């Protein structure tokens, strides 16, 4: 897991970009238009998203299109699922302990 995936998702503009890209691939120019932002500002967001693999680029003629990388997001969710799994294991251990204590009484 790359270091900056939380940073990438924590920014509301980047979340909006990701949401938009789940619907269709877009060029930086179109993104700038849709968000009423400068090309430079959009490029900065794209760079962050691209570095942590949340989006992929594809050259088409003179234009670069950005796609949402669903696989990466899934990987991230699996990672969180693992965290959930640890809690589940711990709580099951606590269930056993509570039963043991109740039986001793």
């Amino acid at each position, binding site marked *: 897991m790359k270091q900056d995936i939380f940073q990438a998702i*924590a920014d509301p503009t980047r979340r909006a970009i990701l949401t938009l890209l789940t619907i269709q691939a877009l060029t930086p120019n179109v993104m700038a238009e849709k968000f009423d932002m400068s090309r430079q500002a959009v490029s900065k967001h794209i760079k962050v998203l691209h570095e942590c693999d949340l989006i992929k680029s594809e050259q088409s003629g003179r234009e670069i299109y950005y796609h949402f990388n669903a696989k990466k997001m899934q990987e991230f969710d699996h990672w969180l699922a*693992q965290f959930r799994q640890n809690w589940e294991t711990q709580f099951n251990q606590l269930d056993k302990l509570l039963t043991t204590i109740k039986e001793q009484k």
Partner: protein
Amino acid sequence: MNNDLLFDFTVDKAAQTVYITREFNAAQSLVWDAFTKPELLDQWGAPAPMRMKTKYMDFKVGGRRFYAMISPDGQEGWSVQEYTSITPKTNFKMYNAFSDKDENRELPGSEWDYTFREENDRTKVNITIYNESLERMEKMIEMGFRIGFTMTLENLEDLLTTLSRKL
């Protein structure tokens, strides 16, 4: 086991907060003890095959708990908890930070809030974990991932042992 007990786990990535709700088939005072007495906490606080060891625990506002999570190969990961608010049997809050073996904290840490409520002979526990920094949340989850990975390997070992006995 106890599949009818409620378990809810939500991660709000944007708010840097994890919400956990779990029901236990026991009275509120017993569940409270399991979360606040070191001799009980150490028995369930780490997912097997990890172990938990409390060096000391002073459960009062401003008091601390210094403990380690120990992996099967003996590696120790230390943490310090500092209690910021306690309402007996109902709620406690603490500030948790990773540390070295000499209790030097690595800040920032995370804020934990535990609420206990009894309903129909069951006790519902709500846990909220807020991470000050995104990096901290990552580290917390990464540590969980490593623990999970260790567990998976252990399970694989069990499976291999079982399989080899059959041969």
